[in-house]
């Protein structure tokens, strides 16, 4: 399989704090990868470095054979890596439709094309199709700041997917979503992304979600990747059990009550 993302010896320090250390990851086309780890383990730092939000202290990041170390987010986005955010980044005072209209316009226009009208009927059709695909069509004319959290998350991800990225990084797509809604939300996202054959990396705390949607797991602990393996293997890895999953998951898996 073709390698999309190749990360070598990535380091990031903030003064004496080591946020990322010896990160080596290779991502192939069409993989769905789950990134797990406790708070502060370096998951978001990793995503921030790959997407250009943070400049790594040292290392190499190659995307589709091209060195993208130190490039700004907009350049990396244009090369084909998009991301969503833990806290949705949308145009809060605009409608859902206008949010996506802007996303499409920026993705589709460049140079003098930027001076063509933002609104055109063909683009509006594409926006409506996109809304339907992410099942937020009923919120089309609602102002983004008034949306329920789950819908706002979907909008954020839908906006990231507009440019049809080859690699999409989702930062905790299900955080702040109620347990009952989590699977529905992930189904919508994964169905939509499968149509575009997008390679997906997503940060997730819920192991049931990880088990159900990903093929491979990257487990972070104190800035390092302590486990990079297929999901079934990773979830029984002793390191992952101890530092990431903790006792509770352990108990339900093996059935022996280990709690005091």
């Amino acid at each position, binding site marked *: 399989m073709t390698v999309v993302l190749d990360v070598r010896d990535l380091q990031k320090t903030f003064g004496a704090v080591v946020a990322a250390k010896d990160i080596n990851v290779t991502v192939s086309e069409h993989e769905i990868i789950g990134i797990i780890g406790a708070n502060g383990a370096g998951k978001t730092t990793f995503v921030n470095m790959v*997407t250009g939000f943070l400049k790594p202290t040292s290392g190499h990041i190659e995307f589709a054979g091209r060195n993208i170390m130190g490039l*700004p*987010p*907009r350049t990396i*986005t*244009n090369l084909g890596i*998009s*991301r969503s*955010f833990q806290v949705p*980044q*949308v*145009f*809060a*005072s*605009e409608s859902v439709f*206008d949010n996506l209209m*802007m*996303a499409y*316009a*920026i*993705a589709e*226009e460049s140079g003098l*094309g*930027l*001076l*063509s*009208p*933002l*609104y055109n009927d063909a683009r509006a059709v594409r926006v409506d199709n996109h809304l339907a695909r992410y099942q937020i069509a009923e919120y089309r004319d609602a102002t983004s700041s008034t949306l329920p959290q789950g819908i706002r998350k979907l909008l954020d991800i839908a*906006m*990231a997917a*507009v*440019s049809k990225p080859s690699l999409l990084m989702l930062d905790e797509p299900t955080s702040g979503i109620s347990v009952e809604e989590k699977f529905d939300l992930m189904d919508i996202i994964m169905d939509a992304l499968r149509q575009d054959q997008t390679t997906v990396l997503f940060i997730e705390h819920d192991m049931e979600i990880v088990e159900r949607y990903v093929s491979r797991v990257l487990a972070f602990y104190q800035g390092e990747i302590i486990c990079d393996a297929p999901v079934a293997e990773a979830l029984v890895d002793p390191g992952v059990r101890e530092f990431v999953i903790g006792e509770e998951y352990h108990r339900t898996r093996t059935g022996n009550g280990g709690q005091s």
Partner: protein
Amino acid sequence: MRYADKTVIGLSIAFLVLAFADFFMAEWVRFIGLQSLARGAVALGLLVLWRTGLVSFGHALYFGIGAYAAAMLTLIGYHDAFFLVFAGTLAAGFLAFLLGFLLRRYRGIFFALLNMAFSMILYGVIVKTEELGSTDGFSVLAPTFLGYAPEGEAVQTTLFIFTLVITYIVTVGVHLYLKTTLGGMSMAVRENEIRVEYLGYSAEKVIHVKYVFSGLVAGFGGAIMALAIGQVDPDSMANWTVSGEFVFITILSGIGNVGATFIGALVFELIRTYAFEYAPHIWQLILGGSLLTIIMFLPDGIWSLFGRLRKSEKAPHP
């Protein structure tokens, strides 16, 4: 017709009416009209910035550059209005382009006051320059128009038509521009720069483009003002109070519509003229009071009056 929306039609009607009225206007009315067009043009630039979430307290810088560039060219023998206004506009635009590289990195109060700081540097330079008349400024001879050299009242009549035509074109242009992708990015940058970056475009670049545009129209307004008054001086062209007036006009007009800036500028001129005429000792108080009234009762500016009218028309009868 895709481009012939209500605003364009409204602007076109206003243009034709004013162009026709030019031949009948009393001289003082025309003078107020010219000043309103000049200041309205600057407010148009501020509107574009304002929509991007930025307020400048220093656009007297570009107004002053436009005015002084045009006026200084008359000193060395250029008198054609087209050339003077073009040169004034371009000089201001070029300066905005250069300063833009620094200013596009700032937001909020820092952006506002850095602009003011630069404008006060210009003010200081002019005041200290004896050759430019220091605080007294110097007078500007009546311009010619492509070889046509009007005399007496015809100077102002021609200047008014000249200004009206350019202002009309620029205003319609801005209105259409605001509907383009780049124009619409004002909203995007104001709302969320991070998202703009992650959609693949530079927020700073957007701001820079808008900043240069605001510099160009402010330079245009300044050059027109120099020709209209026939005089340039630092206190009415480059002082920070002039910048304040532009912000005043923008608040007065609201940012809802490009046409509103000229209505706002006209209202401003009228308030100031009459306040000065009838209450020379407290005219500033009246000006301040009217600003307060606008902020309290029409926080979205004069333009929101039109919105209210439209709403009450549509409101269902009980």
